[in-house]
C-alpha cells in the first residue's frame, strides 16, 4: 500500500436538526453515509481515527463575521458544532496527531459572507472561515488555499477572502448562468489588493470525472504549486454527483476519491450535496479511503455506469479553453492592479445580496483601502430588509501600520446617529479585538 496516512474523521450527522422537515438540509442527510461508513468498517482501520467535534465559540464567529444584530441570533447550536467540527479537524492536523482530517459535519457554510443578516444557500456562518481564523489565531499566520469543490459557487468564502492576499480561494462549480447563486465567473478575480488569489472555474452542465480532473491537474495543482500554501483545504461539496437532485453534473464517487488523492488536502470540510442515498454514502467512503491512502478502486455507486456519464467532446473542448484562459489570467495577475485602481486611494463595491433561505435582502457598500503592504482596511455600510443598518470597520490580518491607523480613525469618527446605523462593529484580526457600539 503506497503512502498510508493517518486520517482524522469528525463525523457529526446532527440527526436531530433540519432547516425544515422536507428541506434537503434535514436530519437524515448523513444517515445512509453513516450506514455505509459503519458497514465498510472504516473506523476500524488503525490509520483512521474518529474524533468528537468541539464547539466553536461566539468569539470564533466574531473573528471573521459581522453578524447582525449579533452572532447568537443568526445561529443555532448546530452551527457551533459544525464549525466546531471543522476546528477540531484543523486542530488535530496542526497538533500533528493526524496527517489530514475530514470534517463530515452539517450544516454547511460556504454561502455565508462576511456580513450575516440571516441564512443564504442553507448557510448561516462560514465554517471554513471560522476554522481558518481560529487556527491562524492559535498557530500563527498561515498561507491557506481553499479549494471549493462544491457544485455551487462558494460566494460566501469568496466574499470573506476577496481582499486577503494570503488566502487562495479557487472554486470549481457549475456555470453560474445555470445554477444558484449565479456568480463565480473568471473575471471575479479578487480585490485590488489580492488579485489572483480568487480564482473561479465555471464548468458546463454534464461535466464528468474527466473534466473535473483535467481542471485539477492542469489548473488548480499548478496554481497551488506557485502559491505555496502552508495548508490546503477542500471545501468538499458533494453535489457535483450525477445523482444530485438540484444540480446537473456527472461527477462520480471514483472521481471524488481521485480528486482528493491528487489534491491531497490537509483538511476537508463537507459542504453541500443532497443526493443522500445515491451519492453521499459512496462519495464519502471514497474520500475517506483516498485521504487515508487506502485502496478506493472498488468504490462505486449501485447504479454507476461510466458509459452514460461520459462528457461530450464539446464540453471537453470548452473546459480546455476555459482552463487556458484562466491560466493566462493567473500568469498576468500582477499586471492588472494599476489599470483597476487608476491612482485612487480606495476601491468601492456596491452589491445587492439576497438571503434565499431566510428571504432577506441586503444592500452593501464595501470600501477597501488600496494598499501594497497588506490586504487593506475595509469599511462596510450595510442595510437589510429586516430594517437593520450597520457600519463596520475591519483591520485585516498582518495589517500595515497605515491601514490600522486609518481604520481606527475611521471607526472613531463614525457618527452612529447621523448615519442612521443601529450597530457599529470594529473587527481587528491581529489583536483579536471585536467591538460593537
Amino acid at each position, binding site marked *: 500500500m503506497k503512502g498510508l496516512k493517518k486520517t482524522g474523521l469528525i463525523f457529526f450527522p446532527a440527526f436531530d436538526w433540519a432547516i425544515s422537515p422536507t428541506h434537503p438540509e434535514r436530519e437524515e442527510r448523513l444517515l445512509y453515509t453513516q450506514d455505509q461508513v*459503519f458497514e465498510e*468498517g472504516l473506523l476500524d482501520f488503525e490509520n483512521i481515527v474518529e474524533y468528537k467535534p468541539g464547539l466553536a465559540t461566539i468569539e470564533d464567529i466574531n473573528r471573521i463575521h459581522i453578524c447582525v444584530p449579533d452572532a447568537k441570533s443568526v445561529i443555532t447550536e448546530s452551527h457551533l*458544532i459544525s464549525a466546531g467540527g471543522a476546528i477540531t479537524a484543523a486542530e488535530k492536523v496542526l497538533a500533528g496527531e493526524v496527517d489530514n482530517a475530514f470534517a463530515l459535519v452539517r450544516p454547511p457554510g460556504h454561502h455565508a459572507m462576511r456580513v450575516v443578516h440571516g441564512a443564504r444557500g442553507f448557510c448561516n456562518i462560514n465554517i471554513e472561515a471560522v476554522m481558518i481564523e481560529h487556527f491562524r489565531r492559535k498557530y500563527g499566520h498561515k498561507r491557506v488555499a481553499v479549494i471549493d469543490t462544491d457544485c455551487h459557487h462558494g460566494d460566501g468564502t469568496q466574499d470573506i477572502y476577496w481582499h486577503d492576499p494570503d488566502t487562495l480561494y479557487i472554486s470549481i462549480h457549475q456555470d453560474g448562468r445555470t445554477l444558484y447563486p449565479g456568480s463565480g465567473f473568471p473575471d471575479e478575480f479578487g480585490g485590488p489588493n489580492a488579485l489572483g488569489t480568487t480564482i473561479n472555474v465555471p464548468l458546463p452542465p454534464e461535466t464528468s470525472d474527466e473534466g473535473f480532473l483535467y481542471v485539477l491537474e492542469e489548473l488548480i495543482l499548478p496554481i497551488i504549486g506557485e502559491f505555496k500554501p502552508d495548508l490546503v483545504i477542500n471545501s468538499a461539496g458533494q453535489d457535483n454527483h450525477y445523482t444530485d437532485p438540484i444540480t446537473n453534473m456527472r461527477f462520480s464517487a471514483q472521481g471524488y476519491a481521485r480528486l482528493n488523492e491528487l489534491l491531497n488536502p490537509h483538511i476537508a470540510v463537507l459542504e453541500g450535496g443532497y443526493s443522500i442515498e445515491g451519492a453521499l454514502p459512496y462519495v464519502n467512503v471514497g474520500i475517506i479511503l483516498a485521504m487515508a491512502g487506502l485502496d478506493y478502486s472498488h468504490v*462505486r455507486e449501485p447504479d454507476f455506469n461510466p458509459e452514460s456519464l461520459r462528457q461530450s467532446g464539446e464540453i471537453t473542448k470548452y473546459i480546455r479553453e476555459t482552463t487556458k484562459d484562466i491560466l493566462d489570467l493567473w500568469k498576468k495577475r500582477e499586471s492588472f492592479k494599476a489599470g483597476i485602481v487608476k491612482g485612487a486611494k480606495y476601491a468601492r463595491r456596491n452589491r445587492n445580496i439576497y438571503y434565499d433561505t431566510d428571504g432577506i435582502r441586503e444592500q452593501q457598500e464595501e470600501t477597501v483601502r488600496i494598499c501594497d503592504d497588506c490586504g487593506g482596511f475595509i469599511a462596510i455600510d450595510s442595510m437589510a430588509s429586516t430594517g437593520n443598518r450597520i457600519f463596520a470597520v475591519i483591520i485585516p490580518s498582518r495589517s500595515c501600520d497605515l491601514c490600522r491607523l486609518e481604520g481606527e480613525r475611521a471607526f472613531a469618527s463614525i457618527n452612529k446617529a447621523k448615519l442612521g446605523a443601529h450597530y457599529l462593529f470594529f473587527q481587528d484580526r491581529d489583536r483579536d479585538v471585536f467591538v460593537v457600539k
Partner: protein
Amino acid sequence: MILGIDVGGTHTDAVLLENFKVKKKTKVPTNQLHLVSSLIGVMDEILRDEDAAAIERVVFSTTLSTNAIVQGKIDRVGMLVASGPGLAPEALRVNDDTRFVAGYMSNRGIEVAPVKKGEIAAAAAELKGAGIGHLGVVGKFSTRNPAHENEIGEVARGDFRHVSLGHRMSGNLNFRRRIATTYLNASIFDLYSRFVGEILEFAARTGLKAPIYILKADGGTFEIRQSADQPVQTILSGPAASVMGIMSLADCSGSDAIAMDMGGTTTDIALLADGVPLLEPLGVTIEGHKTLIRGLKTRSIGLGGDSRVRVDKGELCIGPRREGPAAAFGGPFPTPTDAMIVLGLTEIGDRAKAEEAVAEIAGKMNTTVPEAARLIFEKACQVVASAVSAMIEEINNKPVYTIHELLEGKKLAPARLFIVGGPAAAVAPRLGEILGCQVVIPQDAEVANAFGAALARTTAEVTMLAETERGSLTIAEEGLQMKIPNHFTRKDILRIGMEKLRERARKLGAREADIEVEIVEDQEFNMVRGFYTTGKNIRLKAQIKPGLIARFGKGGERS
C-alpha cells in the same frame, strides 16, 4: 440451589448457592488439555452428598473458545463472501480459504446484484475438495437483508458439516467484523459442539435436570443447547464473569462505579453506569480479530501484585511481566506485594525476604528501604489509577451523533470503586484517594467469578429497521423480513420488536421474571421524495441488559 462454575486459566472454581447464599465452594486445578474433565471433576466434587434433582440452575463460564482461538487450535474454514463494491477484497480477506462471490445488497437492504448459484456451487465444491468441513457465509449489508446469505447457505450446505451465517452473529453493521466473527464461529464450531455434547451426557448420567447455561462475553447467559450454534458468543467470558461477580457480591446500583480485579499478573478494569456494566460499542477484539461480539468493556493492564519491579535508567518500572511469586513467597524478584508487606499494608509472606528484595531497589534508587517501598506502592497505584482515568475519558469522549447528546449527554463519573483480588485490601484506600472514589471490598471475593456466573441473567438484543414506504421490517438477529402496512408507526414497530425480543430471550433460556427490556437506540427519519415525505425510516434497538437474575440484588432476598 444454583451451581456456578468458572473455568479459569489456573483454577476451576465452583460455588453452590442456596437461597442466594454460598452453601459450598470448591477449587480444582484446571486441566487445560481437557477442560470438560475439570468441569466434571468440580461438579462431581461439589454435588457429592447433594441431591442433583434439587439443583435449579447450572451456569458455566469457560475459557474453551477463548483458548482455542488464542492458541490457534481451530478448524480450517471456507469463507464465501459476497463483497459487492466498497473496500477492496484484499482488505476483507480473513484467511486463504476466502472466496469472493457475486451478490450485493444496498445499505437499505435492496438487491443490487443477485448471487450466482453456479459460482457458489463451484466455490463450495472446491473448498470441500480441499478437505474443509466448515463454511462461513457473509454478505455486505446482510443485517439489512439476509436473503443472499440464506441463498448461498442453501446452495452450499450439503457440502459442509455446518454453515455459519453472518447476519445471525449480530444486528450491527460492520462487514469486516461480521466476516471475522462468522469465521471464528465456524472455526470453533466442532470443538464447542463436542463440549456441549459431553456436558449434556454428564448431566444425563448424573440425573441433573436443571437448565444449563453458558456465560457470554456481555455478562449474560444462554442455554447450552442454544449456544451450540453460536460458540463465538462465549469468547472472552472470563472478564465478564469477574464483573458479574462483583455485581453479585456488592450492591453496585445507585451511582457510577469502577469494578476492578487486581490479580498477580494483571489488573482488569470495568465500568458500571448506575449498576449496569458498560459494553464495547461494536464488539470485542480477540487475537487481532475485531468482532461483532457484544462484550463488556474491560481493560487489562500488565500490573499485578506479583509484577516484577525493576529500575531502568533511574526510573522505577513495574510489570508487565510476572517472573514468579512475590519475593516474600520465595519469588526471584521484588514485587508490589513485597512493597506492601514492607509498608505493613498486609501481613502475608516472609517479611524478611520482602525487605531484602525491596532493599535491592532502594540501593539502585539511592534511598531507604521504606522509602523505596513507598515509591513502588505509589507508582503501582498511580499506573492503575491513570489507566482507569484514561478509560473514563475515552468513554466520555465517545463520538455522538445528535446535538442533544453532544450538549446534554451524560458523563460517566464513578463515585465508588469495587475491588477484588489478592492485593485489593492493601491498595484500595490509596486508589480510592487518587480516583476520588469510595472504596468497597466485597466479601467472598475468592469465588466472585463463579458467583457472578451463577447469577447472571440471559441477555439478548434485537435490531429493527422499518421503511414504511416500502412496507418492510427487518429484524437482523432473527433473520426476519416481514411486510408491514404503510401506516405503521414507531409504536407498532416497537410492539413487534419487543415481542420478538421476548421470544428470542425465552428461546435462549430466559425466565419470564428476568425479561427486563430496554430500548437502546431509537431513531425515526422522514423519507422524502422530491419535496414530499413518503414514509418513515424507523430504527430501533432493544435489549435485555446484562444483570443478575430476579430476586437478587437490589430489593431481592439477599440481605
